[in-house]
């Protein structure tokens, strides 16, 4: 070690020993290894004693740095010899670190000496402290991983022999006892198995180690066996832990099999139970378990059903002792989870019955989950697995024929072959039909009991107890209820309507009890019994709610019982309690069932609507109403008038927070009415909302005209200290939310069902005609439309700069965009475009652009005369320039007035359609002017990525849906927006960058056979092609994040496909420049890239070329990281 010591003399580090306390200051000085040994001990002592986190962090860094130094090899034995246990531990850790990191610095002639050194230290600390012994074994295992087999052959038995030879020998005044030796050997054997499974070892080395381990495992198993036979409890526990680590490592079943009997015996001993249970859990979860199912199951069942285990189970439940229960329950549950098929096939066996009883006991473990116990949820997965296994049970035909001597006589040979194949393919064989029926019958009893057990576990505590729980506990308890709900769904698959019957009967009994308790008063605070009864009822209702997912909508025996006066009619309607909340949720969850049983709708609504007025219940009632109205809208149409009357009565009392949901619900029912019939209910629904909206608008106008300036304050500091909307703006926002809810409710669920292009136009024209007819009749329909328009336009005028409000307006505008239906409330598309243009010009919020994108995708096709073919003529002129720009170098591009050009070729386009075409072009022009005005520099683009993103999303929509409009805007504007897109390739912000790339991909993919269009596209490419290529190559070369290279690839591939010659020239021009696109790309790689991408048309090869070049430019070529995605 002297070599390493001498090297340490020049060691410099950032520390100082000052005034008796070792302060880690930023002073630099040179110390020797001797100094570092003493200072290290001081730092370790102070590190463990200090409460100062900053000091601890600095000390830790110092110690870690120390371990990197060569002289740390000497530091380790020095520290291990010290008096402080912390220093000893750090010494052992230093050995481990040095062996792992600096193995190659050990001179070859010192390698074997090092092993002896480590073993000596293990001997010295074999009696403890345990954490130092463990650390030393970790160091020895780090040594073994590197030294075996070259420097340490037959390491398992050699280590044991070495240890054995030192038993009772005195080393430095310490003598190792036989038991200490056993513990140390077991420790090493445990750790080596864990480390071999974990350590990153190169494949060749791993193979060598595996070979050594395979040779050594019989020895280890025999050692474990010896300890299990004759050791004391401590050694046995350690032996079991060691055994478990080898099972985990994956040694073969035949190696462990001889010891299984001893491990079973260990289960029946209090002191070794936990360790043995862990071993069995590991064995059962191993992949080999399935092959040895019978051995494991038949071995374990007698243990599970032994007097000892039953007594243990009973004791743990009676004493509510979670410590005893957890290991036992974990063991039984792991068994159940892994062998549910085996259990299902032997369902009637007495020992299985005992096992199921025990599981049932754990499922209903006393106390509230999370607060009192965490045992009961361990069993839930088993009940699910068991149900699956039970449902897969099939009678074995051969068993039937064998027992009955009948059954297959009528079958021909082929049928018998098929039957025997099915039979042999079945997981569980050997059951005759009778046994199967008996099992099914028994399983019903089990699951009926389970339902009752789980229902009880669902019960909430009383309000007072609940309030005393912490938030985490409450959340865990609620999560557990959800888990139980899922388990009940599995129970339904076993019990079917029996579970409904059971729960309904229970609820009837509980209602009787509630009735009795109510006699003592309905105040829950003073009537504990009533509260308890309501809690019980709640749990039953929760179970029924959970089952709504699986109860068939056509179920007509049990659920009608529930929704009759036997149960539903008796549910509490006066007291505000959880039972009512759950009952409301239950009603909502059965909306699909009500659709098939509309006769129960009215009582359900009579239960729900009054609850809207009760603050505690209102959210549940609103949700239930929403589900029912949405699902059963057709059934409720006839009751719309009554509905509106009820709404008018409760409207004032409804909390604004849920009024939107109620408005939505009613609007869904109105949606099913014919338009002329819908106007009256709509006025009833929105009258108050329009009135309040107009009041807000008037107040705002007055405020603005009173000299506050246009950008009048819309936000203020709230009571919580956060910025929020001032009251008038908040009130306006609220009214807009109600209008939005109404518009959403009026959307037909069939909106998506538009099919062919012809149909789309027909449907739209029919809608326009319908609108015209309705509005022509005048009256209240016009008033309704006008009111809506006034509110929308009014808000845009007086709140143009308030994002929250404008976002809501945009949502309303987007909701109105529909071509297949008409509502008097919806505004026609020219009005919508006007609103968007005005709003965006006043303040460039991205939501306006999103609304514009939707307008283009929804209306352009229908309003401008359909497809491009119908506008420009179906007989396209074969293009003379189809070979690319190169074959037609001089293009006369007429972009002065594309609309007139389109007119020449239009087939029967109406003046209105041509006018609409111009409207769309105007929209694009307006959006482009306003966006580019606000984006003068790259900094502007980086500061407003949301606007950039939305702008390119609109452009993509124009290129895809409205190319004529796209090329109708002035040429300088088109050039500007394309240059803007190319500039966008330099953005680092993903949101904006991705939208830019998607637009360019959309643009490059344009492919028109119409000369007018082609001329315009090619003309544009002539002007911007070189710059676009420059942007793409810069992106590939590293200016764009690597995760975006696929998008660049998607842009480059079609570009080269369409403009091959031009692209070659552009690339050659650009790539000849030194350092372009990256200083890491040399001439050869550029040449290879050009050749690669120009010569292949295989998308995969093209992608590979781009990927390789990109990696080269990013200095990632040849690295694994370069291929990480």
């Amino acid at each position, binding site marked *: 070690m002297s070599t390493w010591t001498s090297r340490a003399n020049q060691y410099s580090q950032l520390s100082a020993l000052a005034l008796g306390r070792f302060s880690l200051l930023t002073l630099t000085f040179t110390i020797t290894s001797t100094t570092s040994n003493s200072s290290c001990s001081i730092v370790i002592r102070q590190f463990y004693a200090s409460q100062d986190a900053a000091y601890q962090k600095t000390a830790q860094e110092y110690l870690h740095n120390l371990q990197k130094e060569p002289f740390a090899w000497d530091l380790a034995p020095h520290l291990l010899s010290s008096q402080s246990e912390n220093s000893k531990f750090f010494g052992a850790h230093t050995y481990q670190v040095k062996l792992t990191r600096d193995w190659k610095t050990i001179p070859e002639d010192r390698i074997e000496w090092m092993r002896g050194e480590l073993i000596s230290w293990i001997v010295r600390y074999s009696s403890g402290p345990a954490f130092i012994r463990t650390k030393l074994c970790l160091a020895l295992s780090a040594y073994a991983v590197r030294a075996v087999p070259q420097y340490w052959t037959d390491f398992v038995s050699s280590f044991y022999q070495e240890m054995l030879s030192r038993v009772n020998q005195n080393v430095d005044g310490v003598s190792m006892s036989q038991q200490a030796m056993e513990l140390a050997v077991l420790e090493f054997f445990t750790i080596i198995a864990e480390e071999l499974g974990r350590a990153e070892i190169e494949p060749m080395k791993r193979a060598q180690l595996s070979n050594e381990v395979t040779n050594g495992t019989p020895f280890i198993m025999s050692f474990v066996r010896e300890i299990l036979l004759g050791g004391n409890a401590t050694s046995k526990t350690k032996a079991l832990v060691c055994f478990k680590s080898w099972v985990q490592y994956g040694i073969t079943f035949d190696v462990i099999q001889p010891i299984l009997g001893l491990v079973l015996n260990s289960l029946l001993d209090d002191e070794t139970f936990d360790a043995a249970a862990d071993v069995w859990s590991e064995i059962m979860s191993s992949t080999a378990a399935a092959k040895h199912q019978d051995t494991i199951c038949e071995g374990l069942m007698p243990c599970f059903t032994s007097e000892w285990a039953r007594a243990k189970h009973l004791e743990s439940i009676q004493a509510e002792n979670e410590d005893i229960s957890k290991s036992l329950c974990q063991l039984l549950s792991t068994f159940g989870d892994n062998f549910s098929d085996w259990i299902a096939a032997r369902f009637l066996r007495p020992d299985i019955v005992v096992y199921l009883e025990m599981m049932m006991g754990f499922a209903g473990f006393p106390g509230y989950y999370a607060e009192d116990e965490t045992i009961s949820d361990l069993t839930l997965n088993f009940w699910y697995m068991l149900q699956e296994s039970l449902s897969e049970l099939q009678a074995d035909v051969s068993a039937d024929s064998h027992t009955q001597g009948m059954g297959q006589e009528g079958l021909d040979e082929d049928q018998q072959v098929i039957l025997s194949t099915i039979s042999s393919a079945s997981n569980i064989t050997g059951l005759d039909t009778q046994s199967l029926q008996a099992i099914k019958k028994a399983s019903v009893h089990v699951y009926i009991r389970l339902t009752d057990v789980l229902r009880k576990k669902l019960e909430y505590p009383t309000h007072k107890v609940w309030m005393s729980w912490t938030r985490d506990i409450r959340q865990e308890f609620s999560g557990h209820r959800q888990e139980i709900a899922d388990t009940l769904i599995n129970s339904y698959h076993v019990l079917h309507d029996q579970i409904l019957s059971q729960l309904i009967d229970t609820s009837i009994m509980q209602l009787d009890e509630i009735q009795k308790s109510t006699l003592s008063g309905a105040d829950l605070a003073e009537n504990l019994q009533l509260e308890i009864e309501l809690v019980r009822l709640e749990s039953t209702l929760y179970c029924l709610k959970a089952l709504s997912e699986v109860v068939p909508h056509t179920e007509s025996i049990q659920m009608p019982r529930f929704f009759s006066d036997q149960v539903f009619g008796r549910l509490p309607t006066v007291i505000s309690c959880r039972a009512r909340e759950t009952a409301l949720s239950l009603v909502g969850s059965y909306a699909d069932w009500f659709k098939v049983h509309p006769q129960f709708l009215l009582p359900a609504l009579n239960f729900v609507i009054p609850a809207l007025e009760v603050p505690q219940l209102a959210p549940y009632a609103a949700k239930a109403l929403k589900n029912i109205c949405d699902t059963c809208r057709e059934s409720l149409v006839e009751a719309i008038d009554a509905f509106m009357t009820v709404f008018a009565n409760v409207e004032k009392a409804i909390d604004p927070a849920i009024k939107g949901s109620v408005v939505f619900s009613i609007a869904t029912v109105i949606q099913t009415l014919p338009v002329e019939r819908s106007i009256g209910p709509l006025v009833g629904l929105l009258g108050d909302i329009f009135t309040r909206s107009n009041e807000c608008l008037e107040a705002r106008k007055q405020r603005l005209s009173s000299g506050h300036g246009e950008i009048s304050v819309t936000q203020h500091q709230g009571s919580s200290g956060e910025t929020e909307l001032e009251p008038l703006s908040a009130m306006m926002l609220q009214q807009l939310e109600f209008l939005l809810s109404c518009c959403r409710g009026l959307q037909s669920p069939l909106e998506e069902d538009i099919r062919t292009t012809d149909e789309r136009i027909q449907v739209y024209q029919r809608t326009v005609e319908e609108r015209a007819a309705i509005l022509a009749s005048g009256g209240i329909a016009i008033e309704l439309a006008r009111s809506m328009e006034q509110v929308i336009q009014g808000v845009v005028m007086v709140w143009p700069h308030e994002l929250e409000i404008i976002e809501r307006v945009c949502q309303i505008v987007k909701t109105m965009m529909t071509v297949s239906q008409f509502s008097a409330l919806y505004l026609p598309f020219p009005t919508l475009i006007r609103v968007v243009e005005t709003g965006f010009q006043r303040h460039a919020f991205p939501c306006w652009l999103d609304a514009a994108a939707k307008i283009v995708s929804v209306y352009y096709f229908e309003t401008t005369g359909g497809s491009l073919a119908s506008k420009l003529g179906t007989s396209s002129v074969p293009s003379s320039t189809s070979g690319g720009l190169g074959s037609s170098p001089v293009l006369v591009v007429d972009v002065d007035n594309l609309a007139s050009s389109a007119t020449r070729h239009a087939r029967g386009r109406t003046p209105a359609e041509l006018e609409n075409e111009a409207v769309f072009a105007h929209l694009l022009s307006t959006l482009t002017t306003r966006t580019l005005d606000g984006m003068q520099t790259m900094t502007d683009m980086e500061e407003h990525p949301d606007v950039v993103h939305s702008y390119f999303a609109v452009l993509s929509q124009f290129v895809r849906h409205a190319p004529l409009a796209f090329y109708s805007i002035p040429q300088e504007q088109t050039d500007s927006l394309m240059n803007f897109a190319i500039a966008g390739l330099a953005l680092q912000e993903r949101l904006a960058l991705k939208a830019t790339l998607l637009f360019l991909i959309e643009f490059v993919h344009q492919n028109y056979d119409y000369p007018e269009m082609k001329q315009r596209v090619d003309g544009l490419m002539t002007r911007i092609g070189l710059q676009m290529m420059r942007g793409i190559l810069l992106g590939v070369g590293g200016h764009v994040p690597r995760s975006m290279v696929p998008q660049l690839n998607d842009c480059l591939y079609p570009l080269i496909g369409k403009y091959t010659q031009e692209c070659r020239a552009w690339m050659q021009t650009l790539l000849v420049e030194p350092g372009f696109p990256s200083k890491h790309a040399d001439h050869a790689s550029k040449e290879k890239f050009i050749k690669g991408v120009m010569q292949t048309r295989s998308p995969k090869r093209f992608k590979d070329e781009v990927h390789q070049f990109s990696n080269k430019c990013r200095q990632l070529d040849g690295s694994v990281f370069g291929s990480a*995605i």
Partner: protein
Amino acid sequence: MSQYYEHYRKSSIGLALIDSLDELIQSGHINPQLAMRVLAQFDMSIAEAFGSSRVRNRVNFKAHLDNYRSLDDVWTFVLSNPTFRFEHDSVTAEKVKIVACKARVPGET
């Protein structure tokens, strides 16, 4: 040799990490080998984060199962018109593909 699934690398957080590591490599702060180690750690940590009981969120969904397949312990389910129900919210989609892999014990080969 990574013992963990690499499919989370293509998630938003994975791509962001790779882009950040790229930047560090290009600026000379780290080398690709270290970046690879960080990525391997990411594979492990994200598997542990999702695999352990730290994720308590629940979601139920209903959908029409268009088709499903299994290959090398990887199950693929193609669902149409699914409705995902969260605790307080629900989300619908036209189509969803679920790729399910065996949840390995961290470190298991």
